[in-house]
């Protein structure tokens, strides 16, 4: 087997959360955003690999880590077998000739004060011209640089190049600006292009044109793509393999055709089901996951998708705060809230890891203990099965869960899934 072009091993990227001094004294100091939390994948030469997920899942953080804009907290990045996890400035400089990024907003990616020709000439002055055998040739000859810019413009269809050289970004249409950005990326003859939501800002009637353009470039320059998108339909069309991300982890990964034909992870299924279909005859009532993506500072225990998962089991990671979420959801009904006012309000409940507790003070904890047991049985579903015990400790009512089963990525029917169902 040939060596992969890019290998990402157990990558973790955490960002500090800036909390107040007092909060830090009180022990809030280890609050960190778990943007990427143990991601492993590799991309073979010539492949289009897609990272697909909703906002905040960590897909763009991975892109930034690959080009050295963000430092990995731990894990390993290998480019052609070479460790580039913590590159020194010189390695990073050379790495960026080989890995280039295309952003969502072509307009914001270009300096308004520079002609688009100069924007590319500048890159070539800094990095040198691409030589015949993948090497780079530094040159002082402005003519040679201008020639190279013209060639690149011609390559991306900005013709005649001399006409575009002295244009400012302002004077170009959206499509032309994207071609300029592509030209700037290609001027370095990179091997891997990281395209971060390259079509998200484009109108539907012209979106296909950009995708076709990316595929043309790929064929012409034997490129490899890391294609980052929130749009499953675009990913299906563009990618050979995909990884579905949720809250910093890849939950399902494999050949795009395999995953789209038969998604296994409940999150993948939910994403696919939620896509609106432009066909009114196929209107169906969708079963959607509850709630929203939780805060990545304190990701849920066990499987991160468990609080929202329609196929959740007792062993998936139930914990104290899930009890509070259950009560909150249940008491949205004013009748139930009134009938069960004894156990409320929600803010009297406190979660601490696997435990949820409520301090009763001088009130008799007995009735609340009975009530919370009944609520868990009635509407807890699989959560109820995870309860180790409900107890009274002095003046406190305590709900305690069993720890979740170990969750590791597994091979299942031709793809890797991180889910206890498989």
């Amino acid at each position, binding site marked *: 087997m040939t060596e992969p072009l890019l290998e990402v091993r157990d990558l973790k990227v955490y960002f500090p959360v800036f909390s107040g001094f007092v909060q830090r004294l009180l022990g809030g100091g280890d609050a960190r955003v778990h943007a990427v939390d143990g991601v492993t994948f590799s991309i073979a030469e010539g492949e289009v690999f897609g990272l697909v997920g909703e906002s905040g899942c960590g897909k763009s953080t991975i892109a930034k880590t690959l080009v050295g804009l963000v430092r990995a907290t731990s894990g390993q990045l290998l480019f052609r077998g070479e460790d580039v996890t913590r590159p020194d400035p010189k390695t990073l400089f050379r790495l960026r000739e080989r890995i280039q990024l295309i952003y969502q907003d072509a307009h914001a990616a270009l300096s308004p004060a520079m002609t688009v020709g100069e924007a590319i000439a500048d890159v070539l002055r800094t990095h040198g011209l691409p030589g015949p055998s993948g090497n780079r040739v530094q040159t002082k000859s402005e003519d040679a640089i201008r020639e190279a810019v013209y060639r690149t413009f011609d390559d991306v269809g900005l013709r005649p190049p001399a006409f575009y050289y002295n244009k400012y970004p302002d004077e170009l249409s959206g499509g032309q600006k994207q071609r300029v950005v592509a030209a700037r990326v290609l001027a370095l003859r990179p091997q891997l292009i990281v395209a971060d939501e390259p079509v998200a800002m484009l*109108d539907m009637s012209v979106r296909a044109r950009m995708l076709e353009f990316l595929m043309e470039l790929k064929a012409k320059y034997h490129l490899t793509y890391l294609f980052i998108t929130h749009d499953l339909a675009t990913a299906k069309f563009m990618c050979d393999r995909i990884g579905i991300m949720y809250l910093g982890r890849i939950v399902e990964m494999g050949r795009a055709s395999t995953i789209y034909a038969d998604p296994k992870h409940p999150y993948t299924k939910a994403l696919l089901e939620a896509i609106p*279909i432009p066909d009114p005859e196929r209107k169906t009532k969708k079963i959607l996951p509850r709630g929203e993506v939780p805060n990545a500072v304190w990701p849920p225990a066990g499987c991160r998708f468990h609080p929202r998962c329609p196929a959740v089991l007792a062993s998936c990671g139930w914990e104290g705060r899930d009890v509070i979420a259950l009560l909150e959801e249940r008491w949205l009904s*004013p009748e139930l809230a009134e009938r069960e006012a004894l156990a409320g309000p929600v803010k009297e409940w406190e979660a601490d890891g696997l435990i949820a507790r409520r301090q009763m003070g001088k009130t008799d904890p007995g009735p609340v203990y009975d009530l919370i047991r009944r609520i868990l049985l009635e509407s807890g579903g699989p959560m109820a099965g995870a309860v180790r015990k409900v107890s009274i400790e002095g003046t406190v009512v305590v709900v305690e869960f069993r720890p979740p089963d170990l969750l590791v990525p597994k091979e299942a029917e031709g793809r890797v899934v991180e889910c206890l169902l498989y």
Partner: protein
Amino acid sequence: MSALLELEHLSVTFETPQGPVHAVQDVSLTIEGGSIVGLVGESGCGKSTLGRAILRLLPENATVAGSVRFAGRDVLALSPKEIRDLRGRNLAMIFQDPMTRLNPLMRIRDHFIETIRAHNPAVRQGQALERAKKVLADVRVPSDRLGMYPHELSGGMRQRVMIALCLLFKPALLIADEPTTALDVILEAQILQLLQSIMHEYSMSVLLITHNLGLVAEFSDRVAVMYAGRIAEEGATPPLFREPRHPYTQGLLRSVIDLETTSLYSVPGEPPSLLGETAGCPFYPRCDKRMAVCETVYPEPRLVGEDHRKVACHLY
């Protein structure tokens, strides 16, 4: 069924240093009570301007011509006090980004109190909060969120709060301008399901302004396709999607990338500038079925086919 909102020959022109921009041109559209109408088009087609024109929320450099009739009243002729009273009470609007619509320095509860008192200054705080709790329960937001600031709420909760604020006076029409564009796909579907169920509960009509054809197909009863300030095609949703007639609608539907896409298509060219006067069909330069007449004569919308579709195209 009766017409709740009637737009007749509505035009909006913005005066700019470069000259007049014809953002909306000669639009006629009717919304029946109890229905969802999708207004779909790409960026710059004038769909948001049209939504704002109905509520008279346009900036000062805008000139509006034609008529807007809401429940029989001439909206454009109302006094400033009357239009303020109509907004919020009978006609409400939600926008794309709830974070920029909620005041970051005000707790959620104060948004509700302020909104209620704007229409009814005599309402006591306690009464206002009771009303707030009731509508929040309808949009499935726990009432303890009332004590929070907008930044403490998740994106989905914020949009729910916006919807709840609109529901306070049970408006007859809700104008939703890209209500879910800032949200992820699962949240988007949740919010639209919510809008759909609330609409029935409150017997409210919705004008859903969006660029997303999928949403329109799933949630609207009728759809109007806008291009370059004009309505290219308008009709009941199922037949329009089954058999689009205007070449722009056809191109737009063909260019959608969905899970069944096997080959890509894009409409050639770019949308025209709306600056200055134009003659003929605005889609003429990009149209693959264009005829000589299209360049000089604008095709007045006419009824086509058995489903009473209005199409602005010389082919019909």
